[in-house]
């Protein structure tokens, strides 16, 4: 019985209190756990099972072993999509992180002897940080629509600007795979740079000032200070960001689906989604499993490659 209906003497009994505690725990955990188990955990587990079946959405799913994976192996469209996704996985983190780090460094340490400190942000740094973050708060679908218009061949912002100076701009998303890929890369980097500026700024902000003062006294210039002081000290954040950005690039779905016409190029998640729309449920889930394995492999590799001695300060 709940405490308020329980007689006084029973209420303070140890066994009753234990019972009451467990009733509370179960009561509070039941609904969240049920939701989580039903709609998150169980689909994940089912996905792995269904990747070995010929499930097409109906009640029957026959176990077919590795047939889906074999089909994938022989599917040129899958390899095309994987090539695009892998390129993004490799290039997007490099571009985004380098830009993010450069801006973060300028914002936190670009100004020298400002405000009486050895190293401080450049003027207006807080404004930069706010504006750079804009894309992060918008929906990916909206970003994709906006950039779809920006890249539009005839009535887009870029080609409209190029027209004004007499250049006939290319059809960015119109049919050339390389240009499509570059456009995709631009949008991904554009939308994530602000995030890494904030992340790296926070990491750089926690580096003690006296280290910078010492470096400055030793005559280290900006570049030298960055590579010898800042970068080693924020390495953990860089590695985490690298993994996170790689997985984001691999997961790119909405931007590609909404922005790039399907005949130009598609990333693997879009290829998966199309198979799902065709009713090839089993095949689609096996593509998902490959994506999962890829992102785990990527994380492990970056952990390995990026493993350096931690520097305590």
């Amino acid at each position, binding site marked *: 019985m709940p*405490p308020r209906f329980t007689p006084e003497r029973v209420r303070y009994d140890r066994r009753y209190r234990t019972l*009451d505690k467990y009733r509370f*725990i179960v009561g509070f*955990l039941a609904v*969240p*756990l049920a*939701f*989580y188990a*039903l*709609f*998150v*955990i*169980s*689909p*994940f587990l089912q996905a792995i099972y*269904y990747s070995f079946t010929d499930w097409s*959405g109906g009640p029957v799913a026959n176990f077919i072993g590795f047939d889906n994976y074999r089909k994938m192996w022989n599917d040129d469209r899958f390899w095309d999509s994987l090539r695009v996704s892998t390129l993004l996985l490799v290039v997007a983190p490099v571009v985004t992180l380098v830009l993010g780090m450069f801006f973060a460094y*300028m914002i936190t340490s670009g100004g020298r002897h400002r405000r009486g400190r050895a190293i401080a942000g*450049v003027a*207006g740094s807080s404004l*930069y940080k*706010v*504006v*750079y*973050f*804009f894309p992060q*708060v*918008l*929906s990916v*679908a*909206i970003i994709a*629509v*906006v*950039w779809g*218009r920006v890249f*539009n061949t005839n009535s*887009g*912002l870029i080609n409209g*600007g190029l*027209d004004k100076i007499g250049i006939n701009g290319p059809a960015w998303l119109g049919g050339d795979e390389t240009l499509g890929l570059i456009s995709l890369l631009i949008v991904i980097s554009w939308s994530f740079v602000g*995030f890494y500026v904030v*992340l790296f700024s926070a990491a750089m902000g926690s580096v003690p000032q*006296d*280290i910078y003062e*010492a470096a*400055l006294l*030793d*005559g280290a210039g900006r570049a030298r200070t960055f590579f*010898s*002081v800042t970068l080693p000290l924020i390495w953990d954040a860089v590695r*985490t960001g690298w993994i*996170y950005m790689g997985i984001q690039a691999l997961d790119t779905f909405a931007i590609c689906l*909404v922005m790039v016409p399907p005949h130009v190029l598609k990333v693997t*998640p879009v290829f998966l989604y199309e198979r*799902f729309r065709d009713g090839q449920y089993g095949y*689609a*889930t096996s593509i998902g499993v490959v994506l*999962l394995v890829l992102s785990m492999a990527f994380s492990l590799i970056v952990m390995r490659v990026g493993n350096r*001695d931690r*520097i305590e300060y």
Partner: protein
Amino acid sequence: MTTTSTTAPRPSTSAAPRREKETGGALNVFSHAFLVLWVILAAGPLIWVALTAFRPSAEILSDPMGWPSSFHWENFSNAWNKANIGQYTLNSLIILAGSLTGTMLLGSMAAYVIARFTFPGNRVIFMLFAGGMMFPVILALVPLFAVMENFGLLDTRPGLMIAYIAYSLPFTTFFLTSFFRTLPTGVQEAAMVDGASHTRTFFQIMLPMAKPGLVSIGIFNFLGQWNQYLLPLLLNNEDEKSYVLPQGLASLAVSQGYRGDWGALFAGLTIAMVPVLVVYAVFQRQVQAGLTAGAIK
């Protein structure tokens, strides 16, 4: 690894800053220019969309870079009424009202129990939630579709709310668990001694104390759920009238290609972007802290 030679500062301190200025000059200008350039790049497309929203469709097509010659407010009413942006906004608001409340309530309940009580399975449940943050949602999509269909939740508002809640729970619970752990135990014990039940202690004592944590994760979930595209695309794709805002705009971008009312599309995008950007500008510190904490678990 030696990072700096902090030990012996050289006596020639006066030379160093001067040299700094000389080498810094050109680099300085370049770096600052680049910072400013990125401001233009980051905000440019958004400002372009907002300006173009006031121009008639024909002008947009003939001169995409031009300024609005006169302000065409009817683009906004067209977007709101004819292109269903009003309906989409309403749908988003309804879904969010349910999903955000549910996420915060269920997430904080689970987190509180995990953080403050010892019971068998405590660690396992915590790991279960923490593990859910690492899997790509796209993998679960197809079976999730079937699960929703079996429960009769496909293409329904409660179904979408439940999906939002379920996929927000891992991070919400993880974040709030560590937050509840930091709260002092004394207050909780005092409440128990005074005869408050566990439930009452939670709602009247612990929840108000956890307010800063609830606000950060609340903003995080607000933006995440408001911007959601993948889940509605999968689970709420039957009736165009039930689309949420990002979904509606994506389909509008396709359909305006046929109808030719680009002004309405740009107005719709503006309607969708401006409120989020205003909320962000007001709470930018919390948003940045929340989102970066959200990504780096």
